[in-house]
């Protein structure tokens, strides 16, 4: 597989996870896992429940520290950095279950999205307007506590909050979980809009088929090991791999 190197540097490696081991205490979860994401692309990380997808995202965002291996983001090693330093470098992780600040208003949650950034008022308004344009419901419900929103609206708020920061790389963990098909369409449209605006995306998604449709590359995790990677279309076409990532139903 070859990738053209464009003037916009599309195709260069933005994130590379090199041979990492990650565990909780003495319990190892990931062993020798590698993964890479090209700038400007959508990459999908797939695997069954418990394969270690969320653990890998947590290691990348600094919530967990790998016991071995290296994580490089945007040319700089981040494997030992604290989460707020990694966020500051432009790598943002929207965790599974949305994890909004339920007691605070929709507007306050969006404001917390830019925590630590020094934005002038005009820039802040521009970012807010962009979020409101994509998710008008967040403008309608701006004063309500985030906990009062429906599941779908909360997911939009979580994505909107991430958009406020305009991250270089956005990691989304199960953005469609618990959403109706109509809302799933909206969330996937938002992800594609983000990519077109220049954000690189690493997507963990239970709706594997849909994730592979929008992703250019895919990585397959099984029992804490990366068992395959390649163009999303190839991964999608392989019956053998399908067994590895499809939930046993």
């Amino acid at each position: 597989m070859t990738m053209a190197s464009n003037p916009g540097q599309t195709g260069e490696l933005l994130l590379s996870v090199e041979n990492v081991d990650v565990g909780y205490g003495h319990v190892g979860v990931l062993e020798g896992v590698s993964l890479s994401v090209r700038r400007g692309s959508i990459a999908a990380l797939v695997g069954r429940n418990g394969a270690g997808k969320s653990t890998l995202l947590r290691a990348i965002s600094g919530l967990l520290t790998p016991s071995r291996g290296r994580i490089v983001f945007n040319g700089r090693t981040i494997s030992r950095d604290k989460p707020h330093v990694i966020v500051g470098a432009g790598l943002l992780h929207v965790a599974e279950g949305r994890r909004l600040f339920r007691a605070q208003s929709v507007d306050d949650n969006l404001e917390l999205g830019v925590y630590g950034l020094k934005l002038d008022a005009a820039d802040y308004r521009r970012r807010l307007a962009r979020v409101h344009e994509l998710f008008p419901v967040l403008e309608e419900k701006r004063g309500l506590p985030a906990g009062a929103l429906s599941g779908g609206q909360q997911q939009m708020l979580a994505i909107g909050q991430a958009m406020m920061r305009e991250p270089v790389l956005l990691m989304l963990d199960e953005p469609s979980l618990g959403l109706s098909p109509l809302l799933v369409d909206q969330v996937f449209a938002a992800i594609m809009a983000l990519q077109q605006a220049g954000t690189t995306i690493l997507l963990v998604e239970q709706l594997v088929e849909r994730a592979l449709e929008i992703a250019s590359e895919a990585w397959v995790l099984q029992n804490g090991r990366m068992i395959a990677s390649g163009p999303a279309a190839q991964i999608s076409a392989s019956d053998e791999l399908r067994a590895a990532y499809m939930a046993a139903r």
Partner: protein
Amino acid sequence: MDIDILARGLVAGSLYALVAVSFNILYRPTNVFNFAQGELVMLGAMVFASLATVLGWPWYAALIVTLLGVGLLTLLIDVVAVAPVLARSQHGTGWVITTLAASLIIANGVNRIWGPDPIVVRPPAPLTTDTFSLAGMTVSAYQIFLVLLTIVLVLAIEQVYRTRQGKAVLAVAEDREAALLRGVNPLRLSHWSFFLGGAFAGLTGVLAAPVLYASTGLGPALLLKGFAAAAVGSIGNNRGALIAGYLIGVTEALGASLLSPGYQEAVVFLLVLCVLLIWPHGLFGRPFARTV
């Protein structure tokens, strides 16, 4: 029954509420109770009394030095006694012992430097502790000022939580890990909260000095009743702390007057016990109801 009880209760209650708020300021981003808060209030009273009364500094200069001094000492408690414990385990409870240790060190240090004699502190003009009659109660201008200022201070502290840093503190309090993922550095917030909570404790000491005198015995009583006010008013809830402070202050004054001053503590803690048995999270609910 003597209606002065109400005035006495409200004045004492204001001080309990202020101590409770200082607990809450530190608790929100760290889930830690700083058991040195009572002695920090005492230290604030002693430092202010020494500067203003003994050395004759103008009250505002003495106030600024007291707030900065107690704030910085509290920051030091965080750096030395709390942050290292939490760095090992976020859910560890070693801070119970380390903050108590800090409390004892401060109490012993103050005893060595100042000795046990109380220092009389006069409020700055035009406020006085001279009493007059108001609606059948014997009160002083300073007492009225103290009760009103307490309300203003509680509302002002609530405004701090409307700033972006304040919202980040609430975010850490609700879901620490989620706050980390938004770029919040919790250590920085906790240092700021310790400084602010310490300065607030120092201010409480300054305000308490004209009514209780500055003495080394101030700490333990204010610690216990301030903590009770925080618990009854629901931990982390400053308006709850204000109301609970008044409730405890008035109950204490009633107990002293109807039974005997020897029973006032028993009456207060009987009330606290009853409230917490019926409402384990205090009168004003959990600070953050989370549905999972």
